């Protein structure tokens, strides 16, 4: 009887431990998402030029990370999350290309022409109207220039510069070698400097 009670107690302790582990992992994941989600949204938005779709992509990436990779070491979450997000962004571009081909076939133009950069500009926070305008214009110029880059250069530049990933982390997120990351990043930054000019700030 006492042996049975003992094994039951051990089983309860194991279940409690598992529950505590799940809660702790959830709390850590919550902190990770809270820290990364806003930057991820802006990166996705700059890539696809559509905030609603960018929100969907970021949510999908968070769900996939939580579902499939929550048990991986915390330090792997950032490159994994961005790898998922970049795959989602590439899929979005593929679907958009097909959609545009179909629209052209049926004689309808690109409905994304109504993208309004002023309306999509972020809300200002405590700046004078002049500063606000200057900031919005500078960011808009940068976004336009980034959107003109080839896909891989765009990914390398945003992951390195905006997210602050190192070369190894960027390589993991992009699924390529570190050498490729360096090449893409270098080409991207030179292209952006050429496009925006030396006085851009």
């Amino acid at each position, binding site marked *: 009887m006492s042996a049975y009670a003992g094994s039951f107690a051990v089983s309860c302790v194991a279940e409690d431990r598992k529950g505590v582990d799940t809660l702790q992992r959830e709390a850590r994941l919550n902190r990770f998402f809270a820290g990364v989600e806003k930057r991820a949204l802006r990166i996705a938005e700059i890539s696809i030029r559509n905030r609603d779709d960018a*929100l969907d992509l970021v949510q999908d990436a968070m*769900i996939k990370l939580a579902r499939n990779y929550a048990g991986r070491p915390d330090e792997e979450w950032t490159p994994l999350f961005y790898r998922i997000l970049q795959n989602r962004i590439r899929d979005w571009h593929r679907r958009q290309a097909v959609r545009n081909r179909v629209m052209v076939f049926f004689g309808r133009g690109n409905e994304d022409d109504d993208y309004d950069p002023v309306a999509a500009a972020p809300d200002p926070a405590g700046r004078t109207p002049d500063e606000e305008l200057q900031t919005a214009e500078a960011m808009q110029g940068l976004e336009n220039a980034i959107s003109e880059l080839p896909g891989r250069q765009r990914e390398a530049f945003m992951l390195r*510069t905006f997210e602050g990933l190192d070369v190894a982390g960027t390589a993991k997120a992009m699924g390529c070698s570190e050498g490729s990351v360096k090449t893409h990043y270098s080409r991207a930054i*030179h292209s952006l400097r050429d496009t925006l000019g030396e006085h851009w700030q």
Partner: protein
Amino acid sequence: MNERDDIADNDVFATRAKVRFDESVDGLDGDTRSRLNRGRQKALAEVTTGGLRWMQWAPAGGLAAAAVVAVVIFTGNPQFAELAAPEVATDMEILLTEDSLEMIENLEFYSWIDFDAEAIDNDGPVNNVG
């Protein structure tokens, strides 16, 4: 320009770009932040309910099991084996049409018509005149 200057200029440019980017992140409106928060909560729910993911395949599993049972019954029973494939396909087509429910509701009426038609075939034409 030598390589060192070029790298320094790249770093200056990257720093400026990062500042502009961070400002745009800080300027995200309340509605967008709220939607991000909702998306995050939805994702976190996956951590606690991850063990029940197999439940989403339950309907498909049930359907597959029913299909296997149907195949076993059809192939093992000589009565069903006599049914020709096109007839089975026709039956399925009829069953899957939208008005099949209406037919089931009026089953009594259709069986009466069927019975009446058989009676006419057996007894010859009914003389309703006079």
